[in-house]
């Protein structure tokens, strides 16, 4: 890495030349350190910005779109929902417990500084195979880190998903999403736009931990990354809890004009973004900042990523009121600067100016147009030899239930307090999405995160589009109408044209599906460099999509468990020969390749609207989308959750083009399984036809605790108790052993 004015930087020679030309001089140590941070991939999105422009961001319900700490949407009655996703992949791969915990800390602050109370957390996670000790260690400590932090601050962890695949062995993915609910008229933006306002830094003190964490996240992990440990912050959820309550209390006054949290890029990032968004300047007195360690130089103070800090831009007349609130909660705080109209960010120490930079040089890093080239593997993997049809398909179902990618995740979510807040009306494991009621109203929101990394590896475009579709189906299965999404895009090294191609394709897919479904993107996060430097192996591309949906009437919510003997079971949507990258191919045949499931926004939109209408008219007793493990696994999960059996006849769905294993296990999109009362059959059938959605009667729910399925050339019979045992015990057993 080049040295400039005594600082190690990741900036490239042409970027350095550009900086010197703009400034007309060589920046000093603190200045170059700040520019280095702000121009890192993590802060500047310099590689991804051109692609992200494809995403639709406007819709009537959008109050605040991308570019702020979180997206905010209108849910009616003067209420708003804020949500955002972040990644904490690199820190978690090195120090899983604190890496994951501080990830939660950061995302909670993002929601808080929009002026709303954080009410839910979701965590999409990726790890290597659970047969590896290293992966089990990461998995155990990431889950514990998330649990300990979320439980302590009293924000329930209500959802998320976990996938295991060898490509995440060295680089686990830890994405965190937080959702907040508040009043529309109390929404705040992270800007300093009122000249004369005082800057109050509140929360933890500034130390040397997390020094340069952002530039660390913008490099690939190496054997030496262990030495980067100081770049991982230490979590302090107790202080965070005080910060949450203190911040929410300050919002009851009219004195707070802007709030922003200190996350990646520390003081540098918060100051430049607040001044940038407010088109002002800032004068900051470094002597006022509470330091944890002695002899910290300006470079360290400005680049530190110490946790649990928030910046407030406060009306000068309200400084006393606000600081009194901080005193009540015993949260450290200090007035550290003033908003000025210079357009410059100036820092003082011992009354001397130690750095001065134009705000725009920090806030607007130059875009890099990366080369994208289609990797050869994409076409190579399409050609595979069709595996032999297993002779015992009942056995295949039992075995699939023991795949860590399908097995019950109770081991994870029972470690999370998912009930605190008395809002969680559908809890983890009970539905495709978590549902939270909005207190003092009839409304509820449904939230789900989804992504299939293997689908995306085989076909980045349809993988990206499919992740959006699947998250929408999860929310719709609860009866909630999707309102907006955020995306957490996790990829390898963007300097590799083949990796960058997968990124561009995935974003194109996400964008096309969002446009087709009229679903705006209100924020997101890009995490590149998820790649092992030794093996050059990148993670499978993982665009994690989080969708928030709205139920106007919380009493209409539907869960996935079969409810009653004799209820009819129907399938909406067609199944295609799309076993490529399915759990069935991977787990049963150890086969990677084939055709990944294709998406079609029109087909998707029809089925989503159809299910919404059915649930709205209270015609459905259980709903579940078909995803990992296909039709067969979706059906048995509904049985296991309801402690009931099913009698299924697949002959109406069979076709000559589709081998039975494809029909059972293909992960085709745009499908739902529903159960309904017998006497509603005709009403349901007629309504479904209006939406041009394929409709099949599959069978009925039975008291007999057996899953019976017949097709033209055979039968499947699985005992409920045996299935449940395998499904429930897989993860705990693997984590013990």
């Amino acid at each position, binding site marked *: 890495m080049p040295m400039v004015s005594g600082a190690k930087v990741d900036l490239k020679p042409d970027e350095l030349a550009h900086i010197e030309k703009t400034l007309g001089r060589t920046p000093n140590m603190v200045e170059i350190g700040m520019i280095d941070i702000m121009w890192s991939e993590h802060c500047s999105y310099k590689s991804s910005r051109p692609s992200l422009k494809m995403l639709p961001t406007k819709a009537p319900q959008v109050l605040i779109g991308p570019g702020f700490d979180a997206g905010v949407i209108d849910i009616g009655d003067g209420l708003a929902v804020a949500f955002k996703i972040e990644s904490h992949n690199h820190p978690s791969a090195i120090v899983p417990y604190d890496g994951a915990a501080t990830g939660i800390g950061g995302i909670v602050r993002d929601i808080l500084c929009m002026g709303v109370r954080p009410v839910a957390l979701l965590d999409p996670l990726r790890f290597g195979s659970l047969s590896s000790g290293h992966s089990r260690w990461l998995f155990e400590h990431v889950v514990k880190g998330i649990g300990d932090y979320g*439980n302590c601050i009293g924000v329930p962890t209500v959802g998320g998903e976990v996938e295991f695949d060898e490509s995440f062995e060295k680089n686990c993915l830890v994405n965190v999403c937080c959702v907040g609910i508040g009043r529309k008229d109390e929404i705040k933006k992270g800007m300093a736009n009122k000249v004369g306002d005082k800057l109050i830094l509140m929360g933890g003190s500034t130390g040397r931990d997390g020094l340069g964490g952002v530039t660390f996240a913008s490099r690939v992990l190496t054997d030496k990354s262990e030495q980067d440990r100081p770049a991982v912050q230490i979590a302090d*959820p107790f202080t965070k809890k005080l910060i949450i309550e203190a911040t929410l209390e300050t919002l009851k006054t009219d004195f707070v004009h802007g709030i922003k949290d200190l996350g990646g890029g520390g003081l540098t990032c918060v100051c430049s973004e607040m001044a940038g968004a407010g088109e002002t300047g800032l004068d900051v007195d470094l002597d006022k900042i509470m330091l944890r360690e002695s002899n910290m130089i300006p470079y360290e103070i400005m680049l530190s990523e110490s946790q649990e800090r928030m910046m407030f831009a406060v009306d000068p007349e309200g400084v006393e009121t606000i600081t009194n609130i901080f005193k009540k909660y015993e949260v450290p705080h200090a007035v550290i600067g003033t908003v000025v109209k210079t357009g410059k960010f100036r820092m003082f120490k011992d009354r001397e100016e130690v750095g001065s930079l134009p705000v725009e040089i920090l806030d607007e890093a130059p875009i890099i147009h990366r080369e994208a080239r289609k990797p050869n593997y994409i076409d190579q993997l399409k050609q595979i030899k069709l595996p032999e049809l297993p002779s015992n398909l009942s056995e295949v179902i039992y075995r699939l239930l023991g795949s860590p990618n399908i097995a019950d995740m109770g081991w994870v979510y029972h470690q999370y*307090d998912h009930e605190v807040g008395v809002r969680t009306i559908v809890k983890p494991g*009970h539905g495709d999405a978590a549902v939270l009621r909005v207190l003092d109203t009839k409304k509820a929101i449904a939230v789900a995160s989804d992504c299939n990394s293997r689908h995306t590896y085989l076909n980045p475009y349809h993988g990206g589009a499919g992740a959006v579709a699947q998250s929408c189906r999860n929310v719709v299965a609860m009866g909630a109408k999707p309102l907006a999404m955020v995306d957490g895009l996790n990829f390898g090294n963007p300097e590799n044209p083949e990796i960058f191609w997968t990124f561009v394709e995935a974003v194109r897919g996400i964008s096309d599906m969002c446009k087709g479904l009229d679903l705006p993107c209100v924020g997101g996060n890009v995490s590149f460099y998820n790649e092992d430097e030794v093996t050059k192996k990148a993670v499978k591309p993982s665009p994690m999509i989080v969708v928030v949906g709205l139920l106007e009437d919380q009493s209409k919510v539907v869960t996935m468990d079969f409810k009653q003997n004799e209820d009819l079971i129907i399938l909406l949507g067609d199944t295609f020969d799309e076993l490529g990258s399915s759990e069935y191919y991977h787990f049963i045949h150890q086969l990677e390749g084939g055709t990944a499931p294709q998406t079609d926004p029109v087909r998707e939109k029809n089925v989503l609207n159809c299910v919404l209408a059915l649930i709205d008219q209270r015609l459905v007793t259980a709903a579940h989308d078909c995803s990992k493990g296909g039709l067969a696994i979706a059906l048995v999960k509904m049985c296991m959750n309801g402690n009931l059996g099913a009698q299924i006849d697949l002959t109406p769905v069979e076709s000559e083009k589709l081998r039975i294993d494809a029909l059972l296990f293909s992960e085709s999109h745009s499908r739902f399984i529903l159960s309904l009362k017998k006497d509603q059959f005709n009403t349901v059938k007629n309504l479904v036809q209006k939406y041009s959605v394929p409709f099949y009667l599959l069978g009925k729910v039975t008291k007999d605790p057996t899953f019976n399925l017949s097709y033209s050339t055979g039968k499947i019979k699985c005992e409920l108790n045996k299935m449940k045992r395998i499904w429930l015990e897989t993860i705990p057993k693997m984590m013990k052993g």
Partner: protein
Amino acid sequence: MPIKVAVIQFPGSNCDLDTVYVLNKIMKIETDLIWHAQFKNSDYDAAILPGGFSYGDHLRAGIIAAYSPAMDIVKQMAKEGKPILGICNGFQILVESSLLPGALLQNDCLTFICKWVHIRTETSNSVYTKRIKKGTVIRIPIAHGEGRYFNDEKALKELNNNDQIVFRYSDEKGKITAESNPNGAFESIAGICNLDRNVLGMMPHPERASEPILSPYKSSDGLGIFQSLKQFLEGS
């Protein structure tokens, strides 16, 4: 004078708002949320110590809050015979401040557990179980890392002899089994009261089990505890 209940908020309490919500909105009992430093007199008719992680569980769960001046007021109220209810972290605080005997150790599975369990009501002779028949099984969630009730043999015997064990973890039929004990608590103890029967500490969360919409069983068994409290306060 109308009845008024205080929910005391320590730094790190996090079930405070939930408890206030249930008391105010569901039970219609006038309830104030009070910051511990502002809890200065015992004018309230009852005090609730809510769940959470007071002082971040630093040192040991509940111990720092146990030494706060607010707890002197709580002890005064207890002496006056006013109802004191400690839920989860509140139970830990009651134990650490010696208002209740015993200790709450780390769960025997060594992890935090959040799940719905069954508890059996062991006595109707307490402020909080007046309206619940002895033997009634209550469906209710737990959410804790340190909830394993411990006491020595002699003390356990006394608790039994004095009918101070209010709730035990059980299966859905009310049978006390090793499998239905989620945290390894001694004698499957989930909640105990003092000799005067006005101070109750319990690990499960009745405020999360008071509305059918929050329950996987569409139950609201936790309400019985608050209804008993209300009945006691109203003197009926």
